[in-house]
């Protein structure tokens, strides 16, 4: 088959995000079945490092490196991406279900008049190149297998940690530089400023391990013990709506129906009762640990391991035990 499988290689400050490598690894697997080439689509400004990091993961890198792409807006990306997508007609275009992916892909798909499956938790491909996307509906109470009409590309955004990065790939991608199409007059919005979140921790949607506390932690300053636990595990700290509404934590760290869905390898919940609105956000986490003083807390219904106990006792002890064990 001639048409290629493309992955939108999302970068932040010149660094390609992990989900893009996850998707390229999956695309390389798919390509073995369908005999298609794998292309990475990279836009931004000052991208030498990004190109280098992508080289083993793709057959081709479609690159637009231009000052007008220094900060992301859907307008400037769409203007630049649409023409060469139309020209090359890839059969698949995948992206991470990140804030950028969820912003860009629906609009781009509408523009290209093609099908788009958002926020997927699984993808397979048939030998004829037909993509089958698995996505949660109703917050994960049911799942749907979604297929696409004849229009191409078949577009999907996929959650972090759905696929593993294959670090053994040894491709050496050919770089295809594309001139920028940015027409300043056509740009409809501009970025005035960026406020980086405090700390250097990964977003909870990206982290492989998320540790979270809810109202059971009683006061905002007590999150310090959560931060300490997170540091040992290289984890990010999540929370419930209850603490966000109290003003104890930032909305960006809220897990659940009105917050974020996470797909961590390990999720640990402390002092979280397990309201449906919360647990809908953790349905695709691999292993779940719950600690709560109430033996009847609903959270235990959604956990793999549970401890009935006081988080103020358990969390510091767990931090110490992990420090000891992980050093060995």
């Amino acid at each position: 088959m001639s048409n290629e499988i493309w992955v939108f290689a999302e970068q932040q400050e010149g660094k390609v995000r992990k989900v893009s490598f996850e998707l390229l690894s999956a695309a390389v697997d798919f390509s073995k079945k369908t005999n298609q080439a794998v292309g990475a689509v990279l836009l931004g400004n000052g991208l030498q490092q990004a190109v280098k990091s992508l080289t083993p993961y793709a057959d081709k890198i479609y690159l637009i490196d231009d000052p007008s792409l220094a900060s992301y807006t859907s307008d400037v990306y769409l203007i630049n991406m649409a023409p060469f997508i139309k020209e090359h007609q890839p059969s698949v275009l995948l992206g991470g279900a990140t804030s950028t992916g969820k912003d860009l892909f629906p609009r781009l798909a509408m523009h290209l008049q093609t099908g788009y499956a958002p926020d997927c938790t699984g993808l397979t491909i048939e030998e004829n190149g037909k993509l089958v996307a698995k996505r949660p509906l109703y917050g994960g109470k049911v799942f749907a297998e979604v297929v696409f009409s004849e229009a191409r590309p078949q577009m999907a955004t996929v959650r972090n940690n759905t696929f593993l990065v294959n670090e053994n790939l040894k491709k050496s991608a050919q770089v295809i530089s594309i001139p920028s199409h940015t027409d300043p007059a056509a740009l409809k919005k501009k970025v005035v400023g960026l406020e980086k979140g405090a700390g250097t921790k990964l977003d909870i949607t990206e982290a492989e391990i998320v540790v979270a506390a809810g109202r059971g932690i009683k006061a905002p300053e007590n999150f310090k013990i959560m931060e300490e636990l997170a540091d040992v595990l290289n984890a990010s700290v999540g929370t419930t709506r209850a603490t966000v509404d109290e003003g104890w934590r930032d909305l960006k760290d809220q897990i659940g129906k009105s917050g974020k869905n996470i797909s961590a390898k390990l999720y640990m919940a402390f002092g979280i009762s397990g309201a449906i609105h919360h647990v809908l956000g953790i349905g695709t986490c691999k292993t779940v640990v719950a600690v709560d003083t109430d033996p009847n807390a609903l959270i235990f219904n959604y956990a793999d391991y549970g401890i009935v106990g006081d988080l103020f006792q358990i969390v510091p002890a767990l931090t110490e035990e992990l420090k000891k064990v992980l050093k060995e």
Partner: protein
Amino acid sequence: MEIYVLVKQVPDPEAIVKVKSDSELEIENKYFTNFFDEIAIEAGLKLREKFGGKVTVLTVDNKKVDALRRGIAMGADDAIQITDPALEGSDQFAIAKALATYLNLKDKPFDLIFAGRQAMDDDAGMVGPAVAELLGIPYVNVITGLEVDDPKKEVKVIREVDGGKEILSCSLPALFTCQKGLNNPRIPQVMNVMKAMKAQIKKVDLAALGLNAEEVGGKAAKIKVQKYLPPPKRPPVKMIKEDFPENVKTLVKLLREEAKII
């Protein structure tokens, strides 16, 4: 200011949803106005209070109009239901097409359109951006802050991005999808709820929009559900029953040796 709000009635997050067959779901009859759409309605009402004008709530649905009634109860001036048998089986892009066509029809131009971040049934987050694309107007996704300069026809918004916030500005007309944090939707007074129950809802069909059946509905769908699946089942919870601090040691051991994740 002419403000439109796109609203949808969806199953409450507490409603039971189960797979009935490969092609059918069983949904408990427990609906509410999409959480994010109430935030969108509130955003519209706040602007009208400041700048004057009109707020219209708009839905595409053949049966459920309670989201429109909720909008009226909260204070919206007008409610429009786009309804037509040919709309059955529409995907999000077809819904967007119907909405955008209606918005384009109006003789009176719109200044602002608000939608929710996502509908709590399909969890797609597609209709807002798709409507903006069809109308060719700026849009910003997932906003938690909004400042409108009416005379200048300019808006400044805050958008949540992974690991931070972004401040963007754009000109009007524009479309924004609303996220928790933007405001706290008002709870309508009982009197207004009663009034809304009786309020007249204008119906618009495809013919009035100048759309034909092939442009929407199942045939036009760009994606299709081939099969519904139940969620993957988690094995029953393993409660660690030892006393503190042995339970902590056991947990770490299980995570290392059984789950093999740390």
